[in-house]
């Protein structure tokens, strides 16, 4: 009886003390297990199970099958104690690691003979299992220990590339399992912080806004789900990155930290020198420093917890633009006006003293705070606020503008970005914890303002000058043309940017989120965990877009060097007019250059409303408790609105998910799992802001003489185009048409996993992942030249029927109003839309098939060391890259150039840019006690296949945007394989009972590998059709559209970027 009282008291005490057991699903994990009699093996019901973790304790009783479950445990390391009724025996399992959304099984056996013994504690000496036996998810988890001891980057965005199948792609974001870097979803404390416009996260990519990123010092845990996740999650075709902020505990803890990356601890980077141009450049670091502090603890013990963090970061770099003059050749000892070539046929260049230094600076002020309130047991409210305002001066890098071929002042942008997120999350458990309710509300905010730091350049038109040379433009030393032969030593190819800074973007974007979820556990032929819920994301963006120039004369000017000019200006049509009146030449498009149509800036206010509903059940049958079947379905409804408030498109996406997880030995130390799921993209706002609200521009062209300008070099950008008489004009109208009954962009996935704990602290795992595309959303042009947003290669008959209905309606109106030009125009427009959608429907079906086999080894920290290694063999084959187009460096989700014209479809099928067959990673650290402190050695190594290379031509001569695959994708081989070895050395010394000081140095790219990571794939700047199924030997017979043989770009195949050279970081960390 005494023992029973003891157990009951322990349970009651635990219930009173229970603290952080009710956090939201997104930030917590589960522990399950079974208690049996060690002698008979019979299940033991009524055993009190207490978990003790960072925010207090929780307790439960085993049922008549001896089973217990803990859900929504805050992540951390726990001790689990089992108190058997009618006995004083206590069995204890220490070191149980609870991770985000993972289920670990901890079984216990209580010896029958011991039940009569005196009160005694048995400690299970074996380590707790770490295998997630609750789901078929694949991915990786990075905890505070990992980010502290392994040499990794500054932010969680930098860390996630350490997951198997992940690497940073050309978008500057992390590609996961074959998707582009724009296809992930990022969550912080359950709030979707993904970039509203592009679907990215802020990772230092120039000229673009992004989602919220925070320093690793703020994060408790970073979970990367690469696939196989359940119906509760959606809106991503790459991975879901679920991060959890640190939070306060019952003791005050914190760290003060700082690091310093000085320029003198950096290697000398390779210079990028495009052959055929006289400009090269190199970016060099000055310093990268940060200081910060994070601290958390109880405001009211067991009731109210606070955590705050603040970490400003200061980074300065500079770009040296250097001049390389061509050497003039000779004939019979006399200059011949031709470049001197080397043995390879490349022009010989000589470095000149003419250089320009472009200073870059980045100032980011990271902050975050969270407040946990536990008013009653089983009820918790979590509030969080976080943000990352940043102020930057940097080289502009939009639409592949080569910063090294631009005027140094023109190439620089002043960029202000400010992200802020606020969340509130309430969790309650009811009815003996069999019903849990999660309610969440939050706001994500992005501010973006991109302009020139030089006031005068905001008031000049940007000039793109073709055929320019540095002597005429800048009188660069050593670049004076040879007066006798006309030889120009310093040409700038293909264009040179001067005048104003170009496009200025400014935007305010919000995401308002709300979520309500219910979790019910019950018995019905087994144990069920039924979860259902609703999630709302309301995204808005107020977007202003302008070319620079004097008021009333904003424009982008192209001066090709042949005595002509073209101007690009924004305009707006009055409501009484239709674009077709202009495209049908009923009204002259040259009118659009001037008042009343011309506008300095285009304003767009677009929004997206996404509602998601899900229903899922995790079921473990009574007779097979080591099997878990997860079945669910997710319904995602997204509606996008244009600037006029009308709907652009709406999608209704059904995403089934099914998985089975089997623990063959019922010990939580192994599993076999398989899953199937369909995953839809959440379409970012960029496509609405540009194609449905902000792409009203007109290009007018004529001769320079019509402008009163005799020489392109005399054009200053002060609005000269207003003096011109254009010979013609072509307009691009916003208000692109969207196909009715649009199918959401999605892929299907199958994941199979086998995992086994092969040693006490080590598991080995084999994952197979297969993904294949279903439908995509992309824009493209129809036979009449109008652009539509559609499902290329996959237009449904219902969509065609709906458009036919629209055509019939427009025809009826046009017939009834034969003299109404708008009615006639709308009828023509409807017909053109039908033709365009039909044409896109006949386009090749989009394909992106990913297959990966990953073998991984995980050794958790014990016996002084930790290690994680993975090797992935994968292939990514298809004709559609995703939301980012690598060849053009084009960040345009659902609006890339892939389906712009039929001419671009040919030769597209092959290894995609993110096809990296081999990917090997090792991360680890070793801690050696020395005196009172300890020595730390951390290591990170990556080896990766190179990127597929191509033979590219242009659709329009000299235009690098619409690219033709002259030969099948991947025909040019690959860039070299990349390896990088990073290391960390540190020493930690206690300086008080609860305080220690650690000094460390991170060494990145120790071997100073500077392998080319990107090459110039533009084989020719001429417009040429593709060679179907051709090989390199067929190139010499290829002709451009005028029948001329192709001239090879001399820089073809040469590096455009190299690995970052060796660099180091010195750091101090005070932990208390």
């Amino acid at each position, binding site marked *: 009886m005494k023992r029973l009282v003891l157990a009951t008291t322990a349970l009651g005490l635990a219930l009173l003390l229970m603290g952080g057991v009710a956090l939201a699903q997104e930030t917590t994990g589960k522990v399950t297990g079974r208690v049996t009699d060690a002698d008979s093996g019979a299940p033991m019901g009524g055993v009190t199970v207490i978990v003790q973790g960072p925010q207090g304790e929780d307790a439960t009783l085993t049922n008549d099958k001896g089973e217990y479950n803990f859900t929504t445990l805050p992540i951390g390391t726990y001790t689990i104690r089992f108190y058997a009724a009618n006995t004083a025996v206590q069995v204890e399992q220490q070191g149980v690691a609870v991770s985000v959304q993972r289920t670990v099984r901890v079984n216990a056996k209580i010896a029958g003979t011991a039940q009569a013994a005196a009160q005694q504690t048995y400690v299970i000496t074996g380590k707790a299992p770490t295998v997630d036996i609750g789901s078929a998810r694949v991915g990786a988890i990075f905890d505070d220990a990992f980010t502290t001891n392994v040499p990794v980057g500054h932010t969680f965005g930098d860390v996630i590339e350490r997951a198997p199948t992940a690497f940073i792609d050309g978008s500057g974001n992390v590609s996961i399992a074959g998707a582009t870097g724009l296809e992930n979803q990022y969550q912080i404390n359950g709030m979707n912080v993904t970039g509203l416009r592009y679907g990215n996260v802020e990772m230092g990519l120039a000229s673009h806004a992004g989602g919220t990123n925070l320093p690793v010092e703020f994060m408790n845990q970073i979970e990367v789900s690469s696939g196989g996740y359940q119906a509760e999650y959606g809106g991503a075709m790459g991975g879901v990155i679920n991060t959890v902020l640190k939070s306060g505990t019952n003791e005050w803890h914190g760290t003060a930290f700082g690091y310093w990356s000085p320029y003198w601890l950096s290697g000398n980077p390779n210079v990028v020198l495009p052959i055929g141009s006289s400009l090269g450049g190199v970016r060099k670091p000055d310093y990268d420093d940060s200081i910060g502090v994070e601290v958390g603890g109880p405001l009211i013990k067991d009731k109210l917890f606070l955590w705050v963090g603040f970490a400003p970061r200061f980074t300065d770099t500079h770009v040296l633009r250097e001049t390389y003059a061509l050497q003039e050749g000779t004939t019979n000892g006399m200059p011949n006006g031709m470049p001197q070539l080397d043995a390879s046929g490349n022009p010989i260049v000589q470095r000149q003293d003419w250089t320009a230094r472009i200073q870059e600076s980045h100032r980011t002020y990271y902050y975050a705070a969270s407040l946990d309130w536990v008013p009653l047991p089983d009820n918790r409210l979590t509030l969080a606020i976080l943000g990352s305002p940043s102020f930057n001066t940097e080289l502009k890098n939009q639409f592949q503008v080569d910063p090294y071929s631009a005027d140094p002042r023109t190439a620089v942008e002043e960029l202000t970005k400010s992200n802020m997120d606020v969340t509130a999350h309430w969790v309650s458990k009811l009815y003996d914890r069999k019903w849990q309710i999660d309610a969440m509300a939050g706001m994500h905010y992005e501010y973006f303002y991109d302009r020139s730091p030089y006031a005068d350049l905001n008031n000049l038109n940007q000039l793109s000058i073709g055929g320019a040379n540095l002597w005429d433009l800048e009188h660069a030393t050593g670049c004076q043309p040879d007066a006798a032969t006309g030889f120009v030593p310093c040409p700038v190819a293909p264009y040179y940017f001067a005048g104003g800074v170009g496009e200025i973007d400014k935007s305010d974007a919000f995401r308002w989120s709300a979520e309500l979820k219910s979790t019910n556990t019950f018995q019905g032929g087994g144990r069920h965990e039924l979860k259902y819920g609703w999630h709302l994301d309301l995204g808005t963006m107020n977007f202003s877009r302008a070319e620079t120039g004097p008021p009333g004369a904003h424009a982008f000017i192209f001066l090709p060097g042949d005595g002509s000019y073209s101007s690009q200006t924004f305009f707006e049509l009055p409501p009484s007019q239709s674009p077709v009146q202009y495209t049908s030449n009923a009204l002259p498009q040259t009118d659009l250059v001037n008042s009343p149509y011309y506008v300095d800036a285009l304003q767009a206010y677009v929004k997206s409303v996404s509602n998601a509903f899900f229903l899922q059940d995790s079921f473990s049958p009574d007779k097979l408790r080591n099997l878990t079947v997860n079945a669910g379905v997710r319904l995602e409804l997204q509606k996008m609105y244009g600037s006029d408030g009308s709907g652009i498109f709406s999608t209704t996406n059904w995403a089934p998910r099914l998985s089975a997880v089997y623990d063959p030995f019922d010990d939580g130390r192994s599993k076999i799992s398989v899953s199937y799921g369909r995953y839809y993209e959440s379409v970012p706002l960029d496509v609405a802001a540009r194609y449905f609200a902000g792409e009203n521009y007109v290009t007018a062209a004529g001769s320079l003489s019509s402008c009163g300008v005799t020489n392109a070099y005399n054009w200053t950008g002060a609005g000269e185009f207003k003096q011109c008489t254009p010979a013609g004009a072509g307009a691009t109208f916003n208000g692109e048409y969207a196909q009715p009954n649009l199918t959401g962009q999605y892929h299907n996935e199958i994941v199979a996993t086998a995992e086994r704990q092969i040693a006490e602290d080590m598991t080995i795992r084999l994952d*197979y992942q*297969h993904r294949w595309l279903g439908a995509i959303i992309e824009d493209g042009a129809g036979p009449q030249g109008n652009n539509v947003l559609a499902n290329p290669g996959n237009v449904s008959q219902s969509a065609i029927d709906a458009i036919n209905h629209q055509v019939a309606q427009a025809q009826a109106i046009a017939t009834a109003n034969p003299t109404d030009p708008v009615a006639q125009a709308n009828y023509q427009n409807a017909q053109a839309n039908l033709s365009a959608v039909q044409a896109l429907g006949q386009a090749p079906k989009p394909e992106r098939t990913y297959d990966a086999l990953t073998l991984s080894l995980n050794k958790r920290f014990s016996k002084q060391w930790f290690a994680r290694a993975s090797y992935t063999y994968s292939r*990514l084959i298809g004709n559609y890259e995703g939301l980012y187009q690598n060849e053009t460096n084009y960040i345009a989700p659902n609006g890339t150039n892939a389906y712009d014209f039929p*001419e671009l479809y040919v030769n597209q099928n092959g290894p995609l840019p993110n096809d990296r067959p081999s990917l090997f990673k090792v991360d680890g650290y070793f801690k050696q006690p020395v005196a009172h402190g300890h020595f730390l050695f951390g290591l990170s190594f990556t080896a990766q296949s190179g990127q597929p290379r191509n033979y590219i031509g242009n659709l329009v001569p000299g235009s690098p945007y619409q690219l033709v695959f002259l030969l099948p994708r991947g025909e040019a081989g690959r860039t070299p394989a990349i390896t990088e070895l990073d290391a960390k050395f540190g020493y930690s010394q206690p300086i008080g009972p609860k305080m220690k000081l650690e000094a460390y140095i991170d060494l990145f790219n120790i071997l100073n590998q500077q392998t080319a990571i990107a090459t110039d794939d533009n084989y020719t700047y001429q417009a040429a*059709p593709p*060679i*179907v*199924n051709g090989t390199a030997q*067929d190139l010499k017979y290829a002709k451009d559209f005028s029948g001329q043989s192709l001239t090879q770009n001399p820089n073809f195949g040469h590096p455009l970027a190299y690995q970052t050279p060796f660099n180091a970081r010195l750091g101090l960390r005070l932990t208390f």
Partner: protein
Amino acid sequence: MKRPLRRFEVIYLAAVLGGGGACTPNNSVKPGAPVLIQVSIVQAGSPVTNIPPGEPACTAMAGDPCHTDAATTMCQQAATSVWCQCVANPAPMAPGPSCTDAGAAGATGTTDAGGADAGAAGGMGGAADNGDASPPDGTWSCNPFSTSSSVMFVFDRLLDGEPLVAADGGTTTAGATMTAGATPIVYTTDYASNGSPGELIFGSPYILNDVRSVGPNIFVMPAPALPAASVVTTALVPSMVLAKDGKTEFTDNGQFGGGMVTFATAPFSASITPPSPPPLPADAGACAAPNTTVALDATATITFTSLVDPTALMSAVTVTAGGTAVPFTLTSMDNLNVTVAPMDMWPANSTITITVAAAATDMNGEMLGTPVTQDFMTGAN
């Protein structure tokens, strides 16, 4: 001893790694003989005319030498095997509206003088089309081709390019012959590997109009032009038109005469289009007399059926005003349409006469034979 894989394991691995996997696509050229899928006659400044597969013969009827329908652009004359282009004769012109009708269309009928019907000048009529020699309206003419014609042979797959290029990288005649009976023709061949017959490559209306981007092709071009009034035969040389294996000769599947095409070229002729008088102002009224005089800087156009050298033509063209020579210039972008412009200004209030002498020759030295003359009136200063 290693345990061999069991059968089901092998099947499973094969299914996982191969069956549904991301296999590298087969992007190699399909084996077998290249198939000749299109033969086209390409005339400068005119739409491409494709020879219909299967050698359709012209169905001549009385007064209708190329009885056909709108869907057929070419047919082959049964007796001679010569291809000609079927051109519909213009429908009878409706009488112009009377001056009591609304609108200002009255000028149309009154100013359509001289060479206004020059569009049919390339027809059977020989010299300047006077309208009387054309077949009856509603019928079809079987017209010869311009002397600027080239022949294009298009294949369904890539060819072995090596036999089709000159060893020194210069011009070549490899792969095809071009003859005109006993008359030697200077010509070149050019193989283009790019283009796609199955796609709307640049020949689509979307962006550009490149006639050669419809697929791998051999282009046979006269240098500079075909002889006028001749029967020209162009034929592929099978031993040089090979598959990528370097051995397999092409096939036409019996559709294109084994890769040979014979067609006639038009006689050398010229027509002169005078400058058009300026239109009447919009408020001139329906019964106002149309303008009959042209501006002093207006230009006329001489259209030839064979390529000419404008510089060499200067001695064969005269421009006079009342018998007095007037200084002028000749320019041409395509060597077929030659623009006649005053050196300064035409004399005011004068009748300007442009004459192309019978001794005018095309680039092959063919003489015009008959002079061509055209007058127009200039207005006041």
